[in-house]
């Protein structure tokens, strides 16, 4: 406990090292989140940054927040993101090509200027010496926070509760789909099916006796993969494992071996005849 308090009130060399190492990681993660082409990768790198931040919280004596950061943010919110990414799937949005003229340039300028300003602002502030959280965390960080939340900030706290409830309801309202038309009857569905391209059920993925994973397209008699057998989403994501190639290779190898075997037999028969 006391060490923690100490850690909170002064900066040790250890912390410095930790900072310089993790800061790099955090920035890298952030950049990754911005620059990665696929949403999933962005999400993951962002999660990394968050974890790093959680560590920094801890280092700054905000133990409660550090834990919450990991549990709530990284654990819940980022997972929520991933869910949505899965739902939405891949879209044209993922290409990094700019469509609005001058957007990149303007954005760059603004960001640059903004960053410089922030830096300048911080640089201007006099932050030579600081008084750590020693006595603030004396009774324990969580207790301290609790004391504040339920006294000084109780009103804001309650409001936040209301906000959360509202958010939940809002999310439900938004995502709840109203059925506009009447549901299709069985007859209609069957008719639609008859008229559609595929009367029988779609062919199953997988190659008989070798693979049965969903991401492996079945092979047509000539060994080429069939588009119908895999989920379009997977194909769009490029997560289709095409095994047609190795099947053909196997075939070629088989013929090769049989040919060699036949030759050997011919040689034997000649020897017997002499």
């Amino acid at each position: 406990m006391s060490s923690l308090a100490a850690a909170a009130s002064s900066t040790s060399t250890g912390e410095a090292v930790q900072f310089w190492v993790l800061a790099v990681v955090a920035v890298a993660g952030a950049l990754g989140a911005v620059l990665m082409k696929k949403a999933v990768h962005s999400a993951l790198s962002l999660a990394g940054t968050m974890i790093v931040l959680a560590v920094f919280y801890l280092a700054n004596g905000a133990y409660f927040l550090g834990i919450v950061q990991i549990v709530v943010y990284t654990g819940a919110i980022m997972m929520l993101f991933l869910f949505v990414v899965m739902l939405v799937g891949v879209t044209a949005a993922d290409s990094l090509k700019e469509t609005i003229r001058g957007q990149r340039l303007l954005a760059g300028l603004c960001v640059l200027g903004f960053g410089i300003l922030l830096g300048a602002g911080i640089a201007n502030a006099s932050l030579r010496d600081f008084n750590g959280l020693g006595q603030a965390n004396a009774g324990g960080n969580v207790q301290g926070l609790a004391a504040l939340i339920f006294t000084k900030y109780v009103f804001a706290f309650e409001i936040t509760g209301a906000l959360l409830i509202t958010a939940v309801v809002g999310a439900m309202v938004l995502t709840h789909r109203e059925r506009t038309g009447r549901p299709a009857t069985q007859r209609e569905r069957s008719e639609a099916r008859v008229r559609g391209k595929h009367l029988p059920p779609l062919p199953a993925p997988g190659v008989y006796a070798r693979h049965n994973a969903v991401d492996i397209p079945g092979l047509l008699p000539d060994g080429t993969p069939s588009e119908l057998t895999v989920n379009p989403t997977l194909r769009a994501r490029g997560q289709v494992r095409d095994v047609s190639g190795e099947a053909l290779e196997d075939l070629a190898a088989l013929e090769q071996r049989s040919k060699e075997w036949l030759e050997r037999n011919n040689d034997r028969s000649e020897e017997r005849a002499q």
Partner: protein
Amino acid sequence: MNPANYLYLAALLFTIGAAGVLIRRNAIVIFMCVELMLNACNLAFVTFSRLHGNLDGQIIAFFTMVVAAAEVVIGLAIIVTIFRSRHSASVDDASLLKL
């Protein structure tokens, strides 16, 4: 080490997040960048609370997290709805907000 470095880091992260918001087209990614910015702010708050030696900064960061959670919920719901209606999560496709 001077804790102000935390602030510089926060500023840097914030800026990066902002750049992401401005550059990316995928609504989800934009959203993530927003989260990044929020986190940067949180870091700043926490650092401040350490510098001042009281917990108010942490409280604010805490509230920020809560609000962010609510915001994410709604935001993602909206994204999903939009995606449903126009089969795209690109913010540029929803460009009807003009005269």
